[in-house]
């Protein structure tokens, strides 16, 4: 069953000199439980595409349907609420709130949503254990390494059980060991919680972990391959 459906989506930036066609005519469907990577060189349009899917930006044309809702038709305020209810985000870097502790950061979205405190507490503790930070609950993000911070970000995104999680180059600022570790955690949560992940990368070692690899070039889908199951699991 598809959660994300893009129909002929284009995005053109009207830059100072010439218009930039960052995304051109993308059709794409993501199903529940997928662990999919968007791969492409820098400037190919990965970030733009993920921003469109996440409702952070509006396409120039085409429609983006999430769980039956065409998010391109939502007003800005409605879109913010929609994101809060349905989408988890992990960004490239510095995406935790510096004044909140690890525990508070991980529970941030749930708290914003007004989820019951007891449930939040249980969920946050479990997820932070899961990402290996169960002993750092009271630390501030600045005390953590980049890899640890991204793990908190994954826990934060996953905590309210969103329909899917978007991660734009989550490993770009990490060393290869931390990058691999983060991907393993994401893959495990994908299996255990059936959480849907859509992430972008241009790191071949990260691509290896994906079960589906969507390659884009110049803002268009160049190839879309599903990987054999066991390769992803044991990769």
């Amino acid at each position, binding site marked *: 069953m598809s959660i994300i459906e893009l129909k002929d989506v284009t995005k053109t930036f009207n830059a100072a000199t010439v218009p930039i066609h960052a995304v051109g005519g993308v059709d794409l469907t993501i199903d529940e439980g997928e662990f999919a990577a968007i791969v492409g060189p820098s400037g190919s349009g990965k970030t733009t595409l993920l*921003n469109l899917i*996440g409702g*952070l*930006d509006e396409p120039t044309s085409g429609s983006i349907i999430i769980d039956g809702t065409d998010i391109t038709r939502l007003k800005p*305020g409605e879109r*913010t*609420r929609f*994101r*809060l*209810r349905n989408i*988890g*985000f992990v*960004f490239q870097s*510095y*995406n935790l*709130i*510096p*004044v*909140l502790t690890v525990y*508070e950061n991980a529970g*941030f*979205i749930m*708290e*914003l*949503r007004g989820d019951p405190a007891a449930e939040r507490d249980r969920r946050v503790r479990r997820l932070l254990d899961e990402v290996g930070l169960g002993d750092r609950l009271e630390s501030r993000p600045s005390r953590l390494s980049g890899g640890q911070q991204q793990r908190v970000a994954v826990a*934060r*995104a996953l905590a309210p059980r969103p329909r899917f999680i978007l991660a734009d180059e989550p490993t770009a600022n990490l060393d290869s060991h931390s990058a691999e570790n983060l991907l393993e955690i994401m893959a495990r949560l994908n299996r255990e919680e059936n959480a849907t992940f859509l992430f972008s990368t241009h790191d071949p070692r990260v691509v290896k972990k994906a079960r589906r690899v969507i390659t884009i070039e110049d803002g268009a889908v160049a190839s879309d391959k599903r990987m054999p199951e066991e390769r992803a699991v044991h990769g």
Partner: protein
Amino acid sequence: MKLIFRMAWRNIWRNRRRTIITMSSIVCAIVLSIIMRSMQLGSYGKMIDNVVGTYTGLLQVHARGYWNDKTINNTFAASDSLLEAIAAIKGVTVVVPRLESFALAAGADRSRGSFIVGIDPEKEHRLTGLRKRLIEGDYLKAHDDGALVAEGLAKFLMVGVGDSIVLLGQGYHGVSAAGAFRIRGIVRFATPELNRSFVYLDLGAAQSLFSADRHLTSAVVEPEKRAMTDETVRTLRSILDRETYEVLTWRELLPELVQQIQGDNAGGIIMLAILYLVVAFGIFGTILMMTDERIREFGIVNAVGLSCGRLAVMTGIETMLLSLLAALSGSAIALPVVYYFNVHPIRLTGEGARAMINFGVEPVLPFLLDWRLFLVQILIVVAMTAVTMLYPLFVLKSLKPVSAMRR
């Protein structure tokens, strides 16, 4: 909401040094302005009390039109019931009847125009402390047929206690007024105009001198406190017939005093305005930095679902909390200072002090202790902050998570 508050609180202390510097500037401004205002307003209060207490009183009832045309013909017949009704008004401590007019005062060889005041000696003393002004002789008794003469006038006429003066003038409806009065005492005023012209008679004696039986030019009504003046005026106006009477406060009776205070006050306010302007720019600078350095962060939290509205509330709480905290600490610091100088007024020395002693008042400068003084300063800070708060609102209004995160 709790989360927003918690974040706001911690954001304030994120750059501890900057916050402390900003808050200190607010604290200093508040302390300085409260103390300055308290001193200034306290000195005005003292000034008003001095002038009002010398003769005028806080408010006066006249026959309508008397103040613009001060003649003996513009008097009113004061029945006991009228005076009693006024005295019965809540907060009124004393009602002082007077009959005032001009007359020529003559000693053995010389004469001069003088100001004749018919008084109820006891009530007059309660209002102005006239008995304490005696430098020679005795005070008037009830129904006395003698006179009290101001020191300067007595010197000019070359008369003393026990001598007689002759008063010559015009009485009610043009009747001629003439009488001789034995001098019971000499009084001294610091104000030269008063000192060279005042003659006090008993009210009854004055009324018969001017053929104005039972008539008064004014009744001074003294409320317990100066702050009660306006309230008392309202009551008076409601019980007195507007066609027959006029009720004037010290502000209308002493316009020069009011002007002098206003002029001085404006200077003080301009100084405070400059002070606050400097502080406002300090607050604005901090808010500017607190906003601009976090635009990327705003973009991220908005992307994950914190609405711009809640972000705006958060920044609002941050700045308000910072200012209010500083304003309250400033007030808390200023309070004991103001309180101390209210209870133990500053004792003045030098020329000014001598002038005050001559006026018959203690040469002290009490500070005004009034919660409104604090409230006003706090409100000024809050209002200033509210204006600077528009900046983050303006930024958040056009916040686009995508472009914010690209920064």
